[in-house]
């Protein structure tokens, strides 16, 4: 085995791998796919893992959900409970609840699968929302990714519906109470609400039809839609190539990162196992949804502190904050504004704005170029402010969904909390917008400061005349680039509404809206440092001398006065 033996060629036709490869290529045309994609580059950043967590927790739900279907019985027929859970012995419970308790106590791993399924569902919705926030704050929704933003928004909504459908299935007291509320929302729909309710429930609430129907929706209809939309979502990610954060060498025309094979496969594939493993660990130790303790659904009893799963909390909170007088009579019919505004109009409006956002912002920027470089959130202060404003509103509603829990834990009056949030929902979001925008502008100014005057070194010198100076080290080209690379948008001036002859111009109204919107976005701004700015900053005499020379002796004798009064 020395130099005399030629190394065996890797693609020797005899090797098993080569035979397999040949088999696959001749039937699937795989060599082209491998050539085009195996070394595809993916950029690296922790925030890109949020989308992965979303995808993986969905897959975990699929896997564990299949196991649950082997034992769950989607029927509300009442049977006498005779399983191993003592407190329910001899009581009338639905088959749905009995089978859920059976798989929890008498099937090994059944409880674990239920808890993994439930925890993964909670993580799924949470990761969806955080992933969405990342996409929003970094501007990843901009052209060419608007449609993927829309797909993502639809997925986020469906995730909430799917989660609600799932936790309604065990037919325990808590889930039944949740369904009661869903039924009331349907009843509140004007004109056709009562009919929709009777068709959906097969009659009155709770009826016998709804749980089996919900089951089909939960395990078949919605997952199929999910899979189709997720496939489209991922296809577009591959088509567009992933966005990347700005930095030296990263341009709008390239992707810098690691190849799919082997690095990214190992990292992303490994991450699936990590997410699954961690959720399994949580499910091993942290109980969730102990339906046996709630007991069977009965419209009469209820427990204090009834809480839905966390992602329904903001809708529940919105319903809680509405005043009763919003229910009005319209020509002899009842319009339940107190329910409709909170449960239909508000979420509908927010969703519409969410989906429309990429186009709203494009009206303000007038920018239809492709964007593959992400924004640092501070460099889009108005967008970041809007995002925080929306999150503030969301969190206030969510907090109000738990107003009873907060009242007990903090020993406050529930009425005060509700009234406070009723006012704060109007005051706090705009305030959050202003504060966030100011913080962003402040951070941008600090960036400017660092670029213009370098980084503090902590090395302090005293001059002969007694003046004390700190040495600032200039930034490296690489560090500086990240702080100065971004675009600088200025308010648009679409031109006057009338031309020189006083004739109204086409599109003048849109122009006006655009002008105002654009001003709102970009009137206050801090511009990135240009080489001229830097040169000007460096011409402040002694400052430069100190920056340029490690030896303080070199500046002896210079006045140094300019430094102390730096920006004067």
């Amino acid at each position, binding site marked *: 085995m020395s130099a005399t033996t030629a190394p065996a060629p890797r693609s020797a036709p005899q090797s098993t791998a080569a035979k397999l490869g040949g088999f696959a290529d001749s039937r699937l045309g795989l060599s082209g796919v491998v050539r085009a994609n195996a070394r595809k580059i993916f950029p690296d950043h922790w925030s890109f893992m949020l989308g992965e967590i979303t995808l993986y927790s969905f897959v975990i739900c699929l896997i564990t959900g299949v196991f649950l279907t082997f034992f769950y019985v989607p029927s509300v027929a009442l049977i006498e409970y005779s399983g191993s859970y003592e407190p329910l012995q001899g009581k009338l419970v639905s088959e749905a609840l009995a089978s859920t308790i059976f798989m929890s106590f008498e099937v090994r791993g059944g*409880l674990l699968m239920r808890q993994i399924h439930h925890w993964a569902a909670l993580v799924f919705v949470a990761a969806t929302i955080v992933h969405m926030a990342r996409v929003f704050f970094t501007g990843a929704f901009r052209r060419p990714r608007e449609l993927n933003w829309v797909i993502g928004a639809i997925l986020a909504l469906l995730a909430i519906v799917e989660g609600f459908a799932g936790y309604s299935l065990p037919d325990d007291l808590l889930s039944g109470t949740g369904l009661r509320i869903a039924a009331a929302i349907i009843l509140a729909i004007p004109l056709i609400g009562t009919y929709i309710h009777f068709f959906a429930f097969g009659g009155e609430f709770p009826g016998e039809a709804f749980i089996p129907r919900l089951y089909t929706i939960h395990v078949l209809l919605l997952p199929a839609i999910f899979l189709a939309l997720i496939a489209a979502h991922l296809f577009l990610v591959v088509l567009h*190539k992933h966005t990347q954060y700005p930095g030296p060498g990263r341009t709008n025309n390239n992707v810098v990162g690691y190849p799919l094979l082997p690095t990214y496969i190992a990292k992303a594939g490994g991450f699936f196992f990590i997410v699954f493993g961690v959720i399994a660990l949580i499910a091993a130790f942290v109980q969730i949804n102990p339906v046996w303790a709630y007991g069977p659904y009965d419209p009469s*009893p209820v427990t204090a502190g009834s809480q839905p799963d966390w992602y329904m909390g903001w809708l529940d909170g919105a319903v809680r904050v509405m005043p009763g007088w919003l229910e009005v009579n319209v020509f002899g019919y009842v319009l339940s504004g107190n329910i409709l505004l909170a449960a239909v109009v508000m979420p509908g409006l927010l969703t519409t704005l969410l989906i429309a956002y990429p186009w709203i912002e494009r009206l303000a920027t007038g920018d239809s170029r492709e964007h593959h470089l992400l924004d640092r959130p501070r460099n889009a202060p108005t967008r970041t402010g809007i995002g925080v404003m929306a999150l503030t509103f969301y969190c206030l509603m969510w907090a109000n969904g738990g107003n009873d829990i907060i009242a007990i834990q903090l020993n406050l009056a529930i009425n005060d909390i509700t009234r406070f949030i009723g006012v704060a929902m109007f005051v706090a979001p705009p305030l959050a917008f202003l504060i966030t925008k100011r913080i962003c502008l402040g951070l941008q100014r600090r960036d400017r400061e660092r670029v213009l005057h370098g980084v503090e070194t902590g090395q302090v010198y005293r001059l002969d005349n007694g003046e004390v100076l700190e040495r600032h080290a200039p930034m490296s080209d690489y560090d500086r680039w990240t702080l100065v690379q971004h675009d600088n948008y200025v308010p648009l001036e679409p031109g006057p509404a009338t031309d020189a002859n006083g004739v109204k111009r086409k599109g003048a109204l849109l122009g006006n809206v655009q002008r105002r919107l654009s001003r709102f976005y970009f009137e206050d701004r801090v511009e990135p440092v240009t080489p001229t700015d830097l040169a000007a900053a460096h011409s402040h005499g002694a400052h430069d001398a100190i920056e340029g020379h490690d030896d303080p002796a070199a500046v002896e004798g210079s006045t140094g006065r300019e430094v102390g009064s730096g920006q004067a």
Partner: protein
Amino acid sequence: MSDVHDNDNDDTARPVSTVRDSGTDAPGTTRTGTDLQTRRAPVPDRFEDPGLPPHRPRMADTDVAAAKRAERQVAFLFFLSIVGTVLTIVGYFAVPLRDETDAGRVLLSNILLGTGIFLTLFGIGTGAVHWAKTLMPDHEEIDERHQIEGGPQEQAEAVGILSNGIEDSGIGRRPLIRNTLVGALALAPLPAVVLLKDTGPNPEGVLAETLWQADTRLVTDPTGTLIRAEEIPIGGVVHVQPEGIEESSHFLDEKAKAAVLLIRLEPDEVAPEALAGSFAGIVAYSKICTHMGCPVALYEQTTHHLLCPCHQSTFDVLQNCKVIFGPSDRPLPQLPIDVDGDGYLVATDGFAEPVGPSYWEREQDLRRMTEES
């Protein structure tokens, strides 16, 4: 056209160029806004992208011992996964559940299986990631992006193909075919909607009907025993349902409307408008919240407030269950009661209005009920 606009040679009001490279603008372009910088003389360009920073090798790239150590760590993590798999299988067979189940066994099984599966998966995951981070090449590579949209020629070709195809189909030349096709397609979903009609009956006013009527006796919920007035102490609360409700064909549907709360006040505390339907300080109210139908089951004895735990609508029993806080708009309907010849509590009539949450036709149902009585 362009002579009439100063910074815009388009004939709409839309701007042409929108992003200004910092520093390239002529003075005076920034006409609006609080420009946070002082105006500058024009300068030729922005900073230049310095390109990728030099690669810094990792420990394992330069030190054979470090690479060997990383290799052992990855192998250890994969081995940990194998241990987890063994633990899971052992845990499965070592802790059977079917014969005798107590909470402790279920808990033990859950923890054993969960921890085992955690190790199985977490070992593989962290091993793979650690492998990638320490030993796989970490030289950043560059892919060039290509414009998503096709060039003018590609676009023109695509448009040509499409219009030829449409032309070949003749749909433009034969409006009769086109119009009937559009009509057929528009109507085709209708059967799918109509077929859903039998998913449930029409409402027919049943939301306003409950099992309560004159002479229906009150029994406790859920035990079903008859109630004597003297059995209820002052300040006492009893959950009530109509006698014989178990026999109804849709037991839970009926209960969702007929659940009632019985409260004994001091006789002089009863609201004047509720007096007629009360007996010796005992008042009966629908327990189904007029907001969204949850049971209004929380009674605060000292204040005589009823609280719905779902959305905190609060009803004051001393004011005939008027809403004093929360999102509900209507008071809880009162069930008029009395005692029968045997001394048991009995309804003297049904509810005078529909119970539970509002619905579009509620006013109509209410009018009908008022006319009938």
